[in-house]
Structure formats: structure tokens, C-alpha cells
């Protein structure tokens, strides 16, 4: 095979056929087939429990399986001995940020261990180490113990360790989960560069659907089966339709009407998104307008749906359902009490030993508002929540929750709020109803009110069908709704949610959000939640971006995006072939923030016309065919990345 055309080389590196993996009696993966070509980045996308890790471990030869067939570099992996034969050409990074590294060892010692284990020749090791450390910008931290690195640095070190023996195929299990968006971009840039330089093939899994555009081809996994496979375009084609977005008033009325007609409707902040199957843009718009006759509809647009929409549509088609009745509106008992301030944080500070986990955090959440704290693992989100809920005393600053002072009225706060923790503190061996009764009693709901309260939250969280089931046997999405119901059973006016949707599938996430929107809009509950899903942050009315313990931006999602466009310019979406040389050409001519998104390149530019002309000139000058250059609405990820880089630049300047 010619080395020049690595990317287009059709030689198969991995072939998986009817793969089955069982853990005792539970089937984790059922009949998955896929093929990975030399030099491509292949994605496995799906929620927790979809079977991604099992499949990746089996491909890496570190997990035996029960059925089917796996072939790597033409070697059938059917025994431990067979797996050993290809391990020299593989690199595997298991799930969990830095968990496979050795916390007590320094960055360099970690790398050296992997190199020694893989018998990298001493002469080459030095050069490779230098190159990889430079690429990941870890040179400065060579002697630092791994346990003292940030999440993004751990992940990059993990990548260096996986690459030190120059494998031909790397298998990375959720490398970007819980990492801040800048590190994520960095990570993708490094991976792309490697692919370009060495023709490395990569199998990468992710739980973020918005990362799907980074892959050349991918498989959407759900419940151990492949829902769709191929290029992003091919997957979108499997669930044809249009996405209609608009602002309508009153929002709840519009949602109720649309849900009667369409399976896939959601409120994202002030906007409503509807997936109209099989519709061309204009037809879809007309169909939606017809449903909303008599309501004020503004800013309606129709566009190509996202992969997440396609995923949900495919899942719904597979299940053949829209099983649950639409949300019953108007559940409220007592009318909401105005729109006063529900949560207020003023200059919150929290130190752990010599480490400042939260630094001068201030924000305000009003009654009926959904407020999002957005940031990577370790940015200080959970610490903020713990201080506001009275679990953790602050080192400095003040705060009030539901009218009670955080420092003196811990007990009063706990009675007035609902709290859903990261781990959903449910009792696994009890039924849904028993859990709800327990939480109701703990929060002091009186006996007379008990049944009425439970009935109300069961209806709200749509748990009617599973009331008498044991919690441990329920799927993640239902457990998450139960955790929410348990936090609501005493009728709190303020709700705290700590990463409530981690690991839940997109349909589950969407249902969960329907409930949250109802709570905020109809019942005027104030909701504060944390998340590291950028796409989820779009649902919030108001956002605070947290980075290294500080709030670096605080506004509505739209205002944040507008500010980005004002300060940094528009996002230009470039489609060019071949894409990798195109990226290189742009980087060389000073467009340093050019980033690869799947087969497309993104660049920030103030003057769209001038930039378009300039880019076209650069690319065509190199003999690269430009298919399209168009401005695109920025995402929150673009905003977050820009804000963090801006802060870093300011620190360097100082």
C-alpha cells in the first residue's frame, strides 16, 4: 500500500462482526458489526451502558467476549495468545480521566514507565518524548507529580503515554469526558496532527453527541446495538427532516400544542425546537405555523437537524413509540409567589488547605429561572452548590437561599430547597414509592399530605408505571427522574441539581428537561444546575461559566454568543478537500485559531467577506478545492473556548 495516500487507504485495520459481550446473564453488546479503515478517526457514540467500553476493550484485546468475531491487522482475536500478537501495534487508553496513570510518579516518570514497558529504544525515546511533550505543551511540567495536574493535562499525559511506542492503532475510551472545552479542542488538534503525520488509526468513544462532527465515520450505539453507522451525513440521511426553531408566546401553550402533533419538541431557553420528520424546510415551517395558529410566533427558521435530533428520531423509530402521554399542564396547587430573588451568591470563596477551589463567585438566580453553572471537572461547580446548600461552610463571602442566610440558617435552607446530587442518592433496594415516602418523611411532610404530595410528584416525573418497581433494576433515565421527584416531594421553591444528566441517553435527557422547563415556567421554581455538556447549557435562561474556581462570564446564552461575535467575530465554517492540508495551510498563514470539526474547519473572523476572500485565496493557491465558506451561529463551546483563551492571554500579558 502506498504511504502517500494514508488517509484514503482502504485497508481495513479493524473488522468487527456480530460482536456479543455478556456479563454473566446480562447482555452488554448484542451483534455489533463495524469496520475501521487505515488512518481514520472512528467514533463510538452513545450514553453510559450503551456498550462502548466493552467493545473497545475487546478490540484492544483486554476483554474476552462471548460471540462474534474481531480482526485487527488481519489477525483474528479469538484467544489471549492471539491478542498478544497485535498488542505491540496497539495503544489503549481506558476510561476515566488519568485513572490509568500513576499519581505518585512525575509526568516524565509516567512516560518513561510506558516507554520501558513497551521497550522503546533509548536513543529514540528522548526525541519522541520531546516532540510529544512539546505538542501537548507539557514540557514545563515534566517533574510535576501526576496527581497535581489539572484534568486537561492528565488527559494529555494519558495520550502521550499511549502514543510513546508509536502504535498504528489507538483506542481511546471517552478521552474528553469531564474535560474543559479548551483542553478538548487541544486534544482533538493533537489527535488530528498525529493522524496527519503518522497515519495513525484511532477508535474513539464519546458520550457527547456534539463531538460527533470530529469523526470521519462513526457508530451510534444504544443499549448494546448499533442504531446507525457511517459518515455524519449518512446518519442524518437515515432520519430525514428539518429542524424548526422559533420564539413563541406563551411558551407552555405552544409546547403543549406541538407535542400533540410532533414526537420531538423541546424548549431551549426562550426558544422552541421542533424536529419535523421528512419535511423540506419550507413545508416544515408551514406545518409548524399551522399548529401554532393564533399564537405570537417570531424568528422562525428551518435548518438541517443536528446529530442529536437524528439520534432521537432513530431511537423513537426503533422503539416504535411515543409512549408517554404529553405533560399535563397546570399541576400547581399554590400560585407562585412573584419573581423575587431565590439564590444570591456574593463573593463566595472556599479554600482547601492551600488550594483555592472557589474564588470570588457572585451571581443571582430569580424565582422561575433556570440557571446553569458551566465548567469542567474541578472548576469548582460542586463546591459552590455545597456552600449554597449549607453542606460546606464558605471560607469567605455571603449568600442567601430562599430568603435564608447561608451562613446561619443551614437547617432552614435545607428545608426550603430540593437537592439532586451527582450520584442520585436513592435507595437501590427499595421501590420507587418507598423511596418517595422515605424522602417525604425525612423532609417532614405530614401524614395527611403524604399521599397527595407523592401522587403529585409521580405525575410530574411520570413515574406512574414504575411505582412499585425496585429502583436498582430501573434504567438510568428513570432513576434520574426519581431522584428529581424525591427532591421535589416536600414542595421546595428552589432546586439544586449537580450534573443531573451525566450518562443519561438523549431521550432521557430531553424528558428530564421537559420536567425542568415545566417546573420553572409553570410552577416558578428557581433551578440551579451544573453541567459540563455545552449543548445542555443552551437550555438555561442564564449561564455562569466557571474556570479554575472563577466565574469568567455570566449572561444569557444569546448575550454570551452576541458578545463573542462582537469581540472576536463570526464563526466561519469551511468545507474544503482534502481537509487536512487545508488546515495546515490556514495555520501556516497565521489563522492560529483554525480548528477541525470532522471534515470541516472553523475560523473566527470579524469581516466575513474579506476573510472569505482571503481564505479562498490561500486554499486555492495550494491547489485545495474549496466547496463552501459560510458564517455559522456560534455555539456555547465557541464562547467558552474564547473566554478561557482570553483569560490566558491576559495572564500572559500581565
Amino acid at each position: 500500500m502506498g504511504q502517500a495516500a494514508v488517509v484514503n487507504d482502504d485497508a481495513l485495520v479493524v473488522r468487527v462482526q456480530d460482536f456479543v459481550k455478556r456479563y454473566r446473564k446480562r447482555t452488554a453488546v448484542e451483534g455489533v458489526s463495524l469496520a475501521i479503515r487505515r488512518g481514520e478517526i472512528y467514533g463510538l457514540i452513545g450514553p453510559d451502558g450503551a456498550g462502548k467500553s466493552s467493545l473497545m476493550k475487546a478490540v484492544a484485546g483486554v476483554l474476552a467476549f462471548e460471540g462474534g468475531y474481531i480482526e485487527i491487522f488481519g489477525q483474528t482475536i479469538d484467544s489471549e495468545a492471539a491478542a498478544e500478537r497485535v498488542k505491540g501495534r496497539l495503544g489503549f487508553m481506558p476510561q476515566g480521566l488519568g485513572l490509568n496513570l500513576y499519581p505518585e510518579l512525575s509526568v516524565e516518570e509516567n512516560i518513561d514507565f510506558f516507554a520501558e514497558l513497551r521497550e522503546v529504544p533509548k536513543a529514540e525515546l528522548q526525541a519522541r518524548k520531546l516532540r510529544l511533550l512539546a505538542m501537548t505543551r507539557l514540557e514545563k511540567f515534566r517533574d510535576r507529580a501526576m496527581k497535581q495536574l489539572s484534568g486537561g493535562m492528565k488527559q494529555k499525559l494519558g495520550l502521550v503515554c499511549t502514543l510513546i511506542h508509536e502504535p498504528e492503532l489507538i483506542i481511546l475510551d471517552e478521552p474528553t469526558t469531564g474535560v474543559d472545552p479548551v483542553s478538548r479542542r487541544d486534544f482533538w488538534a493533537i489527535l488530528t496532527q498525529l493522524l496527519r503525520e503518522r497515519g495513525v488509526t484511532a477508535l474513539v468513544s464519546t458520550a457527547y453527541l456534539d463531538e460527533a462532527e470530529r469523526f470521519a465515520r462513526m457508530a451510534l450505539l444504544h443499549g448494546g446495538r448499533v442504531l446507525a453507522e457511517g459518515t455524519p451525513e449518512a446518519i442524518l440521511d437515515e432520519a430525514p427532516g428539518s429542524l424548526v426553531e422559533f420564539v413563541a408566546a406563551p411558551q407552555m401553550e405552544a409546547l403543549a400544542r406541538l407535542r400533540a402533533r410532533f414526537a420531538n419538541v423541546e424548549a431551549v431557553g426562550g426558544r422552541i425546537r421542533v424536529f419535523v420528520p421528512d419535511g423540506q424546510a419550507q413545508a416544515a415551517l408551514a406545518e409548524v405555523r399551522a399548529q401554532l395558529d393564533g399564537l405570537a410566533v417570531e424568528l422562525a427558521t428551518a435548518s438541517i437537524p443536528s446529530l442529536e435530533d437524528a439520534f432521537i428520531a432513530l431511537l423513537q423509530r426503533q422503539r416504535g413509540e411515543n409512549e408517554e402521554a404529553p405533560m399535563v399542564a397546570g399541576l400547581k396547587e399554590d400560585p407562585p409567589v412573584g419573581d423575587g430573588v431565590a439564590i444570591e451568591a456574593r463573593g463566595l470563596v472556599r479554600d482547601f488547605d492551600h488550594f483555592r477551589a472557589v474564588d470570588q463567585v457572585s451571581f443571582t438566580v430569580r424565582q422561575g429561572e433556570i440557571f446553569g453553572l458551566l465548567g469542567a471537572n474541578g472548576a469548582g461547580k460542586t463546591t459552590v452548590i455545597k456552600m449554597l446548600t449549607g453542606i460546606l461552610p464558605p471560607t469567605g463571602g455571603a449568600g442567601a437561599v430562599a430568603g435564608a442566610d447561608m451562613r446561619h440558617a443551614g437547617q432552614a435552607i435545607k428545608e426550603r430547597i430540593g437537592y439532586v446530587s451527582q450520584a442520585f442518592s436513592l435507595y437501590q433496594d427499595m421501590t420507587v414509592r418507598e423511596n418517595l415516602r422515605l424522602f417525604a418523611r425525612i423532609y417532614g411532610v405530614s401524614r395527611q399530605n403524604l399521599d397527595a404530595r407523592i401522587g403529585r410528584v409521580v405525575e410530574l416525573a411520570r413515574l406512574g408505571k414504575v411505582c412499585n418497581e425496585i429502583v436498582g433494576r430501573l434504567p438510568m433515565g428513570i432513576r434520574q427522574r426519581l431522584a428529581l421527584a424525591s427532591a421535589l416531594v416536600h414542595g421546595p421553591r428552589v432546586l439544586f441539581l449537580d450534573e443531573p444528566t451525566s450518562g443519561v441517553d438523549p431521550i432521557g435527557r430531553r424528558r428530564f428537561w421537559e420536567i425542568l422547563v415545566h417546573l420553572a415556567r409553570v410552577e416558578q421554581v428557581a433551578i440551579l444546575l451544573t453541567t459540563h455538556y455545552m449543548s445542555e447549557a443552551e437550555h438555561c435562561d442564564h449561564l455562569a461559566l466557571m474556570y479554575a474556581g472563577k466565574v469568567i462570564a455570566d449572561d444569557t446564552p444569546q448575550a454570551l454568543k452576541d458578545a463573542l461575535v462582537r469581540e472576536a467575530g463570526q464563526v466561519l465554517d469551511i468545507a474544503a478537500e482534502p481537509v487536512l492540508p487545508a488546515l495546515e495551510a490556514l495555520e501556516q498563514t497565521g489563522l492560529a485559531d483554525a480548528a477541525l470539526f470532522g471534515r470541516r474547519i472553523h475560523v473566527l473572523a470579524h469581516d466575513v467577506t474579506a476573510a472569505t476572500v482571503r481564505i479562498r485565496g490561500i486554499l486555492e493557491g495550494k491547489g485545495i478545492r474549496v466547496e463552501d465558506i459560510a458564517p455559522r451561529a456560534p455555539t456555547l463551546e465557541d464562547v467558552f473556548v474564547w473566554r478561557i483563551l482570553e483569560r490566558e492571554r491576559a495572564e500572559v500579558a500581565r
Partner: protein
Amino acid sequence: MNLRRILAVSYKEWREIVRDRLFLTLAFVVPAALMLVFGFGLTLDVEHLPFAVVDHDKSAASRDYLHRYIDSRYFDYRGDLESERDIARLLAASRIRLAIVIPPRFGERLAQGRAVAVQTLIDGTFPFRTSSSKGYVVAINSAYNGELLARYISDRMGVTLDAAMTMAQPVKVEMRYMFNQEIRSTWSIASVLVMFVLMITPPFLTALGVVREKENGSIYNIYASTVTRGEFLIGKLAPYVGISLLNFLILWLLATHLFGAPFKGDPLFFALASIIFVSCTTGIGLLVSLFVRTQVAAMMLTVVVTIVPSVLYSGLLVPIASMDPMGQFEAHLFPAMYYADIVLGSFLKGVGLDVLWGKALALALYAAVLWTASFLLFHKRPKA
């Protein structure tokens, strides 16, 4: 076998152990601490039993009789009681372990040559102590009886008291204690504790060390790499064997210098046998680690498989010979017993390879079986 990969694994492991303060403490402080705690605390000699008396006679004879208890080092006299009613209360409160009741007219009846019953109440909650106490009481009492008899003979036959003694007790027991002349239990305990600590700590360290990698997920580095099973196991365990040998030296010094136990045997043989034993117990830890997933489970399982045999089936508390056949069989299944024999033989008896080779061989066999089983059970491509 590739030496470079083995060294890589060992070196990594060693540095992790040295830099992890908690683990380092566990590795070096805990074994010595166990030795000290048990060495000073676990004495099997029953002495200084607190006791009280109720003397209804208060004659010269009763005082003479009681002084035999009061003056003995096995008993601690805690005073006279007014009546028997107080005894129960003091026994229940563990203030005394034993009470002696002298009936009225004790001296008078003895002088008349009539039998007298002296009531003795003993705390029976702890059988080992009870039977020792009973032994002491019976011995003191029979010595007193012998004396009475001798005095009677001397009075009636007009011989000296010494001659009368010989006539009253014609057969005498001539006793000589071998190996531990002063039958000091600290000597034997200090030496057996070397076995006890080496039986418990290496499996703990090893099991924690291996399971820690499993729990963290760093074991996947090993699974996914080209290092072979054997290379990994040797490399991973070498530091633990090393640490345990260092501990062995520390324990040996503590036993001989702090507890004053004599070492009469062949140091070279003892060192070699100890290396075999440490490989054996490290192997136990390795085997345990292959069956569990979490460090907590590893600790629990290690406690069960190490402490039970080392306390119950090593001869530490109960001699193997006095166990029932089932117990003896079980004792032979565990390595603790063999090494306990080697330790006692080397420390106190001064014997070496010529006598103890069988035990050393049993340990070597044991180690070989453990390591082979671990090798066969360890997979780089597990089912779950």
C-alpha cells in the same frame, strides 16, 4: 522473560510505594508495631492472680495456710473479706479471680487429725486461666498436705523433718527445662511473632498493591501492553518480597535485642527458609488479589486467610499435637505451622537444615503451588 520489562514494572512499583506515605507506613511501621504490641501484650504466663480470703478461723494454722498463697508469685493478695457474700460481687466485677474460704475451727480440726474442706471459688470465664489457677491451688494445697504428713511422721517416729519428708513423698520429680531454661514465654512468643507478622503483612501489602491497580484501572496498561503475565507478576511482586525481607531483618533484631530471645541456630539456613516463607506469603496475597476487585474486599479476604491460620493453626496458642485429627490436618495445610517450627528450631533449639529440611521443603512446595496457581489464574484478557 524480558528483564527490561520486569525492571520497569518493579521500579515503577517501588517508587509508588516509597512516595505514598500511607503505604510506606503500612509497609514498615505496621510490622514492627505488631511485633511490639503483641510482644509486650501477649504473655501466656498466668501470674499475679488477684484473690481474696474469708478466714472464719483466724488461727495460727489458717494464717500459715493462707500465707502459702499470699507469698506465691502466682497470686496477688487483695485482702480479707468479712463474709462470703462479698465474694460474688468482687468476682463479678473482675476485681478478684479467686477466693479462698477457711471454715471455722480449721486449726482445731487439723490438730485433731480430722479432714477440713477449704472452699475455693474460681472465675471460670476464661478456661485457660481457670485451669492454670486450679493447678496452682492444687499444688499449693498438696504441698501443705505433704508438710502436715511429714510433721506427723516426724512427731510419731522421732525422725528429723527432712527424713520424714522423704518418707512421705518417696518419689520426687526431677525437672529440667530444655531450650528455654527459664520457661519464659516472651522468648518463644517473640520468636513465633516473627512468623506471625511475616504471615500477615506481606499478603496485605501485596493484595493491596495489585488490587489498587485493578481498582484504578491502571491494570489496563499491563493488559494492553506486550509485557507477559510472568514478567508482570515477577516485576510487581519483587518489591513486596524485598520489603518483607527488610521487615524480616527488623523483626529478627527486635526479637533478639529487645525481647532478648536467644538465636542459637544457623543464620544462613534461617535466612533462606525465611525467603521461602516470604515468597509463600506474598503468593497468598497475590492469589487473594486475583479473586477480588476492591481494596476493601482484598483486606477482608486477607484477614480471613492469614490471621486465622497463623493464630489458630501455627501452634502459637494451642500445640498442634493437642488438636483433634481434623485440626491437625488443617494445620498441615497452612504454611504457618512449618515456619513456626523453623523459627522455634532456629531461635531456641539451635537446629538447622539437617532437622528442618522437611519443613523448608514444604514451604517451598507451598510457594511453588501459590505462584503457579496465580500465574494460571491471571489473565491479560479477562472475562469481565
